[in-house]
């Protein structure tokens, strides 16, 4: 078991955000985490590499207990790559610099070795020719692929993605998703928070539906996304897949995508239709129409 989460609770002050999460991710498995905004998806991911400190519970990654107070957290984090919604590239460094600096400073790799690994990973995300560009000169999709290459350059055993395509223009989503798809096919262990249902259906070995800090439903993508058993899952998927559909007021939650319309940034409305493999739910309806 590559990632093992047991009885995870997390509160901010008096506000419980995660209320008892049990989850396992096997080596080479890709698990997609879906759920309404504010349900605790980011917090769950950030607990795995201790960007947030769990209030209670146990997390083991690759045999090392992350939640052990004695653990060398920097050593653990080296083995866990993380990709953020906002890319978070280092703006003062070139693309090559973004990839080599962490290798040099953290892994103490030689200059030549770091540059070699950087080139390999830039080639992997199809951006070798951008090595000397600065992040500000790249499109959002290119920045996100650089961020993935930067994480991969550290040689992680696990990759965490927190809504990697949510701040991208719809036409750039596909490139990032295809990089992730290839990574999954290559056997990387991945936890992906996403609103891209077609990606989840096609790539995820398992889908976890999180709502209000608990896992409501979990299973193969075809089941959770294709034939959800729980009312809450159905409601959520309905809102994500048909954001423009009329709804009775009672069914509308605080989900930002609920109003439909491409203006609601970061919502689950972007780019579902760009992916191949639409399913029975009529994915093409979810693209910005």
């Amino acid at each position, binding site marked *: 078991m590559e990632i093992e989460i047991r009885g995870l609770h997390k509160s901010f002050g008096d506000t419980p955000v995660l209320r008892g999460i049990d989850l396992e991710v096997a080596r080479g498995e890709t698990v997609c985490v879906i759920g309404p905004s504010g349900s605790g998806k980011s917090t769950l991911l950030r607990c795995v590499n201790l*960007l947030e400190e769990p209030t209670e519970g146990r997390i083991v990654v690759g045999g090392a207990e992350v939640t052990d107070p004695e653990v060398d957290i920097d050593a653990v*984090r080296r083995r866990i790559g*993380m990709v953020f919604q906002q890319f978070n590239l*280092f*703006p003062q460094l070139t693309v090559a610099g973004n990839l080599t600096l*962490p290798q040099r400073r*953290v892994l103490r790799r030689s200059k030549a070795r770091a540059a070699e690994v950087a080139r390999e990973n830039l080639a992997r995300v199809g951006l070798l020719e951008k090595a000397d560009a600065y992040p500000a000169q790249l499109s959002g999709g290119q*920045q996100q692929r650089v961020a993935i290459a*930067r994480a991969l350059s550290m040689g992680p055993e696990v990759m965490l993605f927190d809504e990697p395509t949510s701040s991208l223009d719809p036409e750039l989503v596909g490139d990032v998703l295809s990089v992730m798809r290839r990574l999954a096919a290559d056997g990387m262990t991945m936890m992906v928070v996403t609103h891209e249902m077609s990606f989840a259906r096609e790539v995820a070995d398992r889908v976890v539906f999180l709502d209000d800090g608990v896992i409501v439903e979990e299973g193969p993508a075809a089941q959770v996304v294709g034939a959800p058993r729980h009312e809450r899952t159905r409601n959520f998927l309905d809102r994500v897949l048909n954001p423009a559909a009329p709804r009775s007021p009672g069914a509308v939650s605080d989900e930002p995508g609920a109003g439909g319309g491409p203006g609601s940034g970061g919502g689950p409305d972007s780019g579902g239709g760009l992916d191949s493999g639409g399913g029975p739910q009529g994915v093409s309806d979810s693209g910005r129409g």
Partner: protein
Amino acid sequence: MSPRLTRRQRRRVSRGAQYAVLAAAVALVAVLADWGRLAQQFAQPDLAGELFPDIITTALRNTVLYTVSGFAFGLVLGLVVALMRLSSIAPYRWAATVYIEFFRGLPALLIFIFVGVAVPLAFPGTEIPGGTYGKVALGLGLVAAAYIAETVRAGIQAVPRGQMEAARSLGFSYPRAMVSVIFPQAFRIVIPPLTNELVLLFKDSSLVLFLGVTLDERELTKFGRDLAGQSANSTPILVAGLCYLLVTVPLSLLVRRLEARTAVERPWR
């Protein structure tokens, strides 16, 4: 004025009025001031000539030395205070806040007198290393550090949170992330305000006047005042003033250019 004026006409009238006020003010000063007496007191070419080269090789040189040493000490101390201010340990934060408010709340002159009098009293027999230069560095630096600390703190906090999170998730320790990722970005943000601080220090170095210095240690203001006294003419003051402007104006223009540049560069993500 008729209320029938169009907007453009009104704007023209308003501009005309502003120019008229300006012209009147200039004319008034030109007519009323006694230019002859002023010229005699402040602009004696032969007296000005006698100031050279000493006003450059001694006075301006010392002003620069005092400023640079005060700035260097202030920068180091200010950086430490800024990091204390951002520390997760509360007593450090308190100490930093007290320091900043204390030294920003007192006139620099008072600090200078304090350094000149109290330090020798408190530590009898010990000399501040560097003699006058050391005392000036201490006096200017203590004050400058308070302002620099606030500038640096703001610069560090202006770096987006995601940068630290990205660095930590790559395995950087906190101090290493600070040095490798946060400082280089904060540095670009604080260069213009720090240059401004340098201009302020350059002028504040005139407070050396109150420390009692030897002839060779005089800086521009003291030098100008001494020579004005000797010659019973204020020309040296004017020349000393021009020497200040020679340095401060280009620095201020530089700050403006730097600020314009960072404003353009800032659509950083």
